[in-house]
């Protein structure tokens, strides 16, 4: 405050010429120097216009308040047909909008699997031909329906969905049920075992979960997520504690349904045998949080990061539903079996909604064991979370990291801060094989392309008044 300015000896933060920092050090003044670097060439005028936008401070504060206030309760499990009004031939997919022609191997494979699962095609070739012809086929991003899907994220009418509510912001979000690892639709596999599993999930898993959830009543997913990040999960590539806590919550109600004990056992074995089961609940919870901050003019907060296997796309609060896309990168990580970097598809999936909400790569400090799965070292994990504070506007006290003295998750990625610091959001991700039908080939680390952020700042600047006109 100005009134304090002259009150005593200041401690000074310096940015720029080292000589001036040295001059302060020579006076034994308490100083801290910024490791400053220029923003990418061509962005400076846009950054200034956005920083000068008189709406910015309040718009961002509003976005953050809404995001932090969001709740996430599992309220129901229903087929996409009922939950989202999907008709036969209508498929949702991960990431920004995409055509069949531009779709990558795993995305094409997943759509083919969904065609066969829905009975719209008998063979993979038949499915591919019909998708290529496009008659009666509609492809849309999950995000356009408030839904999210991991990896290929393909949702078809018969698939069962978790339905979550954010009562604070009156939001609803959906996500499919997790199929497990290995050869699964979301990684682009379409073999008979994949289709059989999807059928079992529709016939057995979905209805039993629905019965249990309805018996139980709402389940607070945000509370489980808060606990899991204190138990070594980061909510994207490690969901072990979350999965078990969900099962703990649901088990009495699963047993209390009319289903035979052998069916209950089958379901429990499936859920507890898949450490990623809870990912599909973290994701819609994260979606509820981030979408709560969407659509506020002047806000520079990223509300979506998502990939479709071809493009990486982001959405920003102040620019509404506009996608800023660029070619997705191939993750860098660890491979299963004999797979290697040549087998990996570019980045794919809506699961980056976890990072958009301050989890996943942003929460690595709280999940040091993750480095055995995605690569890197424990100091890297600690450093990564701490770096993310430099590109986010707030800390989420709901998701606290014990190792960082219970500091809240870095929340509210700011487009301007990403460009100014050169620090890109850190994403933990699975890797799909690039050939349709392969399935998962590994897991690793990836970052969004810088171009998503440079395009976003251009659009934000265009929507902001010229400096000096307000």
């Amino acid at each position, binding site marked *: *405050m*100005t*009134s*304090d*300015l*002259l*009150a*005593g*000896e*200041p*401690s*000074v*933060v*310096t*940015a*720029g*010429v*080292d*000589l*001036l*920092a040295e*001059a*302060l*050090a*020579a*006076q034994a*003044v*308490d*100083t*801290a*120097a*910024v*490791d*400053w*670097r*220029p*923003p*990418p*060439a061509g962005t*400076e005028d846009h950054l*200034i216009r956005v*920083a*000068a936008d008189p709406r910015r*401070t309040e718009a961002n504060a509003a976005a953050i308040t809404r995001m932090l206030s969001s709740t996430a309760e599992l309220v129901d499990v229903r087929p996409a047909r009922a939950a989202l009004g999907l008709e036969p031939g209508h498929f949702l997919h991960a990431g920004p909008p995409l055509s069949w022609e531009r779709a990558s191997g795993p995305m094409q494979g997943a759509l083919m699997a969904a065609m066969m699962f829905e009975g719209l095609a008998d063979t993979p070739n038949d499915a591919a031909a019909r998708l290529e012809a496009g008659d009666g086929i509609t492809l849309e991003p999950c995000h356009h329906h408030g839904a999210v899907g991991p990896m290929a994220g393909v949702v078809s009418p018969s698939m069962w969905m978790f339905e979550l509510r954010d009562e604070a912001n009156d939001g609803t979000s959906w996500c499919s049920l997790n199929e497990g690892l290995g050869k699964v639709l979301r990684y682009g596999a379409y073999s008979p075992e994949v289709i059989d599993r999807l059928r079992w999930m529709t016939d057995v898993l979905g209805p039993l979960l629905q019965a249990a959830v309805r018996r139980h009543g709402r389940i607070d997913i945000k509370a489980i997520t808060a606990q899991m990040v204190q138990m070594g999960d980061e909510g994207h590539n490690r969901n072990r504690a979350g999965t078990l806590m969900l099962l703990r919550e649901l088990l009495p109600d699963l047993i209390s349904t009319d289903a035979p004990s052998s069916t209950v056992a089958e379901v429990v074995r499936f859920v507890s045998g898949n450490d990623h089961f809870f990912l599909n609940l973290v994701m819609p919870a994260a979606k509820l949080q981030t979408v709560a901050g969407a659509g506020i003019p002047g806000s520079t907060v990223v509300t979506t990061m998502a990939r479709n296997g071809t493009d990486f796309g982001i959405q920003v609060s102040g620019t509404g539903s506009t996608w800023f896309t660029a070619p997705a990168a191939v993750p860098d990580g660890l491979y299963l079996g004999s797979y290697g970097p040549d087998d990996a598809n570019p980045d794919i999936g809506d699961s980056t909604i976890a990072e958009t909400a301050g989890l996943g790569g942003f929460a690595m400090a709280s999940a040091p064991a993750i480095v055995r799965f995605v690569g890197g070292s424990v*100091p890297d994990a*600690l*450093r990564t979370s*701490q*770096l993310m*504070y*430099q590109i986010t506007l707030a800390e989420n006290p709901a998701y606290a990291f014990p*190792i960082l003295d219970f500091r809240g998750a870095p929340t509210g990625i700011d487009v*301007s*801060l990403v460009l*100014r*610091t*050169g*620090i890109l959001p850190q994403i933990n991700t699975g890797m799909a094989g690039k050939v349709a039908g392969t399935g998962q080939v590994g897991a690793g680390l990836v970052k969004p392309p810088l171009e998503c952020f440079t395009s976003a700042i251009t659009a934000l600047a265009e929507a902001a008044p010229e*400096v*000096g006109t307000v």
Partner: protein
Amino acid sequence: MPRQLDVRPGVYLDSVTLMQVSSDAAALDGVNAAMVAMATELNLGLLAGMGFTAPDTAAPTDLLVAVDAVDDDALARTLAAVESALTTRTAGPQRPELGFGAAPAPHTVRAALDQSGGTLALISTPGRYAFLDAMDALDAGRSVVVFSDNVPVEQEIRLKDEAARRDLLVMGPDCGTAVIGGVGLGFANVVRPGPVGIVAASGTGAQQLMSLLDGAGVGISHCVGVGGRDMSAAVGGRTTLDALDLLDADAATETIVVIGKPPADEVADAVRDKAAELGKPVLIALQGPGQPDLTATAESVVSSLGREWSEPQWWPAPTMRTGHYPHIRGLYSGGTLCDEAMLIATETLGPIRSNIPLRPEWDVGPSLRADGHAMIDFGDDALTAGRPHPMIDNSLRVERIRAEAADPTCGVLLLDVVLGHGAHPDPAAELAPAITAAHTHAAGDGRDLAVVVALIGTAGDPQGLERQAAVLRDAGASVHLSHSAAVRKAVELVADPT
């Protein structure tokens, strides 16, 4: 001849540091040319001038290392020296090795303020970005000193309006000096604490005033730099008016002085109205024809406090001035001092050519050379592009001293030498040999070249005031702590040699 160009993406060092690394490298044996610089448009142009072609992808975020040497051995030695200098810089005292779990270095002012709990920000990033860094400080609820220049005026206004909204202060842009709570920011002399609060729209002007007051035993409570443009019609004295309120409320301040260039009329009125409202005496001493110079202002302040004023110390030249001194050539590092010199000298000498002329028709032109009286501000933006400020690096002035020594129309060399934190650690060591050589050269041509130095500094400055004065004097200069006295000495020499 062997040469090498490296482009290193993502490595950033500030231009002052890099210019030092460059000039150290260029000075090594066997080096024809060396440049270590960020790949800005300007630097890419300079690089092309050295005969190097940078890749099209080179951007201002990339570091260029270009060396042209006489042989492979010299090339390798120079590259190694550059490497070592860069390593020292990037791993300097500000960036201790990161330990396990340590927070990474802050990349924004906001992050640094969060991590350190700092109470004030000092921004000296390039002017095209400085708005972002200054806004960061305001967003974090801290006042900010913007040392950077070349910040567009509409951005200055936006920053100052934001500061007003948040009850904060923006000092600058182009704030060369400030003293807040005893801490010197930017180029700052070491001054004793005391009752005088200064509001300054001029950096070297404030340094002169504070140094003279300190020399007279009168201390400073705070010096709030406001930036050279604050009292313009466009900016409207936004910071000046707030600074007056702050100093009025400050317990340590007994009397207030406002210095700077003549303001826009309506701003002058607003400042006067504000001053009249305050409970403390305010001396408004703005530079201009017929106005008191900075030394006279210092005297007024000292007298108003009931202290005795004596003329600031000076050291006469070691030999008698006996020659004929045709014209003054003023070689300045401080723009305000250059301006004050012209205001004083023109009364006696008439037209004075300059790159910052009193009248447009007295513009010296791009050569910076004139047959008559001339005063050059080597700290002007146009002359500091791509090289360090003359308060840090005297090489341009040394070169000019050599040229003037060979010019029979030059009778008196008038120099300002500014001491204090941030300034060159030993300016006399660079200037004294040049002065001695100039004397010798001129004497060889049968001329006595008079050298008059205005030494701006205090007894507490790290360079050592007495020592600097002695070295400059031993080189043949008369040395004056009062700038206006130095100018008058120079004028006296050309008007009436004694």
